[in-house]
């Protein structure tokens, strides 16, 4: 019991905190003032993750945690790393929200309750090792984010984006659920380890083989099971791919991102992606990831995801090219970034050993995924924060024209924004470059040369539209007669910007240190199953 509470600490802090926020909000006389407490809650949760890091490093710890939760939640370092990203994203997003909501006359306490519960949901999803838990985490997260998207209640776009997000999200959740139900039916288990074990063994129905014609019946049942399992796998992939916004499940992304209040956009771009990738890592690598041997294709999902990755990169980048709103451009580019991460993700089931004690190819690729998620989180939240700060009072800076001349008008914000944009574009020495570098390296290590080339070509397209922001900021003057943006004054946003800018630079200067943490984080979750003795 003691163990259980200890391992649950990051989630408990957020859940209890969420209820407290609700109470405080209900009983306080005026609206507002909850941003700092919410951010503190998230940072406390993040601190708990850091504190737990050393208690989650060995298989024994893992087994203890697993037994404490009956295998519903995994508390290994992968979870902690993802939880850290989620806590960071949630905390920084609530800092941003504190100023943004005030500025746009939206300040109501529910936002902070929603973000706190959504973060708790994200953490559940990131650590879930049971299909029921996956579903609960996913829905806790999603319901909060739907409501946050609809938070600008008098704004038609906000409502529309929320409706689209909600309807399609529920549809995707239903697909995921149906897949889960089929998996359960075929294996008798909802926990991932049980499903994996059941799938590894040939089907056995007690007493059937002894009956007349039993052998045939058994083989027919075996075939049915195999087919249904593959179908279920595809359904589960569809459900999770929706959350990371991978093509062809990406259509909601631009609309929801554009409609949502900017802090919510920053939040869901970062945390939802992190949580969904965590769940994918558990389900796909944990159940279908055939990590026993040197080169594994694991039921075809890596090949499938490779196509999704390329499609996401291509479509995300192409459509981002022709956007006139930076917010919408960032939404499409988030699809592309999802594609880049997927490109590393497809390599995760590979178990060849790398030279130089870096673990296996798969572990290195999974670490690339985590590193990318972290890099994307800091760059993206920073970019949205800078965009917010560049806006005029009551009017958001969302189009390219809104940032024209920002370099002269507000050099500090322009400088910060250029850091984040350069990082997102993948230009050294920002962290985004090393994130992409790791992904390319992983793809090449697994001989996915075509994937690596696709990634490089797409990065080049990306550079074009990212640099347009810089060109607008530094080389263009605002159109005559355009409303002069009065930059928002906000210590909360400044704090966020400085923090993320420093992280972007520091992680860019010492990428291997952070990659090392990521690698440590995946050592157990993507461990190659000990190869059976050769016959």
């Amino acid at each position: 019991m003691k163990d259980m509470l200890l391992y649950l600490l990051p989630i408990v802090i957020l859940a209890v905190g969420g209820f407290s926020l609700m109470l405080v909000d209900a009983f306080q006389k005026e609206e507002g003032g909850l941003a700092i407490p919410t951010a503190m809650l998230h940072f406390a949760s993040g601190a708990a993750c850091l504190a737990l890091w050393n208690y989650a490093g060995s298989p024994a710890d893992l087994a203890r945690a697993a037994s404490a939760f009956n295998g519903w939640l995994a508390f290994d370092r992968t979870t902690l790393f993802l939880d850290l990203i989620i806590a960071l994203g949630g905390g920084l997003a609530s800092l941003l929200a504190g100023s943004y909501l005030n500025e746009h006359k939206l300040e109501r306490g529910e936002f902070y309750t929603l973000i706190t519960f959504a973060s708790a949901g994200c953490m559940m999803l990131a650590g879930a090792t049971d299909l029921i838990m996956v579903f609960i985490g996913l829905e806790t997260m999603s319901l909060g984010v739907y409501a946050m998207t609809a938070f600008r209640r008098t704004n038609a776009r906000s409502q529309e984006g929320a409706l689209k997000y909600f309807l399609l999200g529920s549809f995707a959740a239903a697909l995921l659920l149906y897949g889960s139900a089929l998996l359960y039916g075929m294996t008798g288990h909802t926990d991932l380890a049980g499903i994996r074990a059941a799938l590894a063994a040939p089907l056995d129905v007690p007493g059937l083989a002894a009956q007349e014609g039993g052998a045939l019946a058994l083989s027919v049942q075996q075939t049915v099971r195999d087919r249904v399992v593959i179908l279920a796998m595809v359904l589960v992939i569809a459900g999770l791919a929706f959350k990371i916004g991978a093509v062809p499940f990406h259509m909601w992304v631009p609309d929801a991102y554009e409609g949502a209040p900017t802090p919510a956009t920053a939040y869901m771009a970062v945390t939802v992606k992190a949580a969904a990738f965590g769940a994918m890592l558990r389900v796909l690598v944990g159940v279908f990831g055939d990590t026993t041997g040197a080169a594994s294709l694991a039921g075809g999902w890596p090949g499938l995801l490779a196509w999704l990755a390329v499609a996401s990169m291509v479509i995300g980048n192409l459509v981002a090219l022709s956007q006139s709103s930076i917010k919408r451009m960032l939404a499409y580019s988030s699809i592309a970034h999802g594609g880049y991460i997927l490109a590393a993700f497809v390599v995760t089931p590979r178990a060849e050993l790398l030279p130089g004690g870096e673990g296996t190819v798969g572990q290195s690729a999974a670490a690339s995924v985590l590193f990318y998620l972290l890099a994307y989180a800091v760059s993206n939240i920073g970019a949205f924060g800078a965009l917010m700060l560049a806006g005029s009072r009551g009017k958001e800076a969302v189009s390219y024209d809104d940032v024209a001349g920002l370099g002269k008008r507000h050099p500090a914000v322009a400088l910060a924004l250029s850091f984040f944009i350069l990082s997102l574009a993948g230009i050294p020495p920002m962290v985004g470059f090393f994130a992409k570098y790791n992904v390319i390296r992983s793809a090449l290590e697994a001989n996915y040369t075509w994937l690596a080339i696709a990634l490089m070509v797409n990065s080049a397209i990306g550079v074009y539209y990212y640099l347009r922001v810089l060109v607008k900021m530094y080389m263009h003057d605002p159109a005559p007669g355009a409303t002069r943006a009065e930059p928002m004054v906000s210590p909360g946003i400044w704090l966020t910007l400085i923090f993320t800018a420093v992280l972007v630079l520091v992680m860019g200067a010492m990428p291997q240190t952070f990659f090392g943490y990521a690698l440590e984080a995946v050592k157990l979750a993507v461990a190659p199953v000990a190869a059976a003795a050769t016959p």
Partner: protein
Amino acid sequence: MGSIQLTHYLVLSAVLFSVGAVGFLVRRNSLVALMCIELMLNAVNLTLVAFNRWMPANPGGAVAHHGQVFAFFVIAVAAAEAAVGLAIVLSLYRVRKVVRTDDANLMKE
């Protein structure tokens, strides 16, 4: 084979799921879309419960009830989802006076 078997339930729930999905695709009223999602979730519930009912017992003789537990969670979550969904539909109606989903197309391309 006169009695009702697992297969019947599975086929029924698959049909229900498909009806829900097709309804979701073709009906333009957002309230109907919500109902279709409910239908799909209930189809899943049926699948889960049916699987659990026909699940062979463990060697010890006990039957795990994961499927039914799962179904309870789905029901609970579906209720929450419906609440959020209706709230969003209402809110959209208040702003734009529309309930048809294809009228909500301010944002595109």
